[in-house]
């Protein structure tokens, strides 16, 4: 085996290794979802965000427009403060956009769904989204349903 062939084979090996890394990064992981541009940040307060995590998606009309960048708790109002980073190309969202926390699928991950309002002014960096709807906690929902059901059967008697 002469040196040239060895070097060619090693070159191919390194190229294959880097291609595999590239494939893992682009095709297997969520790298292509990350965006380089910083975008702008908006704040929303929720009564209950259970299940939402930092880097959960923020979507509008089903299209991902950003991600949750920070979650905090306000000790005075007992609300959750969620900061979302919206990509800068989506800079025409109206000021009265509302935010709600939804679940992808029955048991899937939580995400924030934005719904556009009718205001002519747009959302800017560090603006607050005033209309929010908390995440639906399955246990609470079932509890309420069971309560209703028991009440209903009492009425009949």
């Amino acid at each position, binding site marked *: 085996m002469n*040196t040239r062939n060895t070097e060619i084979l090693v070159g191919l090996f390194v190229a294959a290794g880097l291609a595999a890394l590239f494939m893992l990064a682009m095709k*297997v992981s969520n790298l292509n979802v990350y965006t380089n541009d910083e975008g702008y940040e908006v704040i929303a307060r929720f009564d209950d965000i259970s299940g939402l995590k930092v880097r959960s998606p923020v979507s509008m009309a089903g299209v991902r427009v950003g991600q949750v960048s920070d979650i905090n708790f306000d000790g005075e109002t007992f609300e959750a403060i969620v900061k979302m980073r919206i990509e800068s190309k989506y800079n025409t969202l109206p000021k009265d956009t509302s935010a709600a926390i939804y679940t992808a699928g029955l048991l899937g991950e939580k995400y924030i769904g934005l719904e556009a309002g009718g205001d002519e002014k747009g959302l800017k960096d560090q603006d607050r989204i005033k209309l929010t709807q908390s995440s639906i906690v399955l246990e609470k929902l079932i509890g309420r349903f069971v309560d209703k059901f028991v009440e209903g059967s009492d009425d009949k008697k």
Partner: protein
Amino acid sequence: MLNSIQQLGHSGLTFFQRLGRACVLFAQIVGGIPGMVWRFPLVIQQMYSVGVLSLLIILVSGLFVGMVLGLQGYNTLVDFGAEESLGVMVALSLVRELGPVVAALLFAGRAGSALTAEIGLMKATEQLSAMEMMAIDPIRRVLTPRFLAGFISMPLLAAIFSAVGVIGGNFVGVGLLGVDDGAYWSQMQAAVDIYDDINNGVIKSIVFGVVVTWIAVFEGYDAVPTSEGVSRATTRTVVHSSLAILGLDFILTAIMF
């Protein structure tokens, strides 16, 4: 009674002596790395024997591990009606654990043992002493290129293993068992994180590469220069590096995830 205590002390002392020698050798090898820039053809030569020749076993076993994961994962997930998550399961187990660990185990068996045998035979046939006679430092000429080649090759091999495994899982899950192709990839992309999963897997494989080549090179260099000594050193390389891989994997996993 006293004899057994003496025995214990003796083996303890031997262990620490060897550990000390291994650490000194590691420092010497790492000290030789900057000089490798001018002698990079040596590293390429070693990358051929350490990396390229290990490629076949890595490709084949990666493919089969991925296919088995696809098959087993499907059988379990289908009970919960969650067979769409097959891609997540295959990709996460490969990228986080099986890719680095199994590739490193195979690497220890395929490349590590060969390194030890080669260096041990060089020592037994006094080639290393001959180099010293010619004022060539055998550590820098023989050990450093091999160490560097293992250090570079291991992450590449682990990445190839994981990538091939994901494709193998796709082949079984989508091709044979009828999972939706789009769900396989999109759920995988949603769940696998570039920093938490892929990056940590690569860090793991770099650590394993360093440890396996370090053990292999040390065992060869430290071997008793007889045919029996070399064969023992080769066995020790495989056993010690496998144990080191599995132990370190636990520690790394506990730190990372």
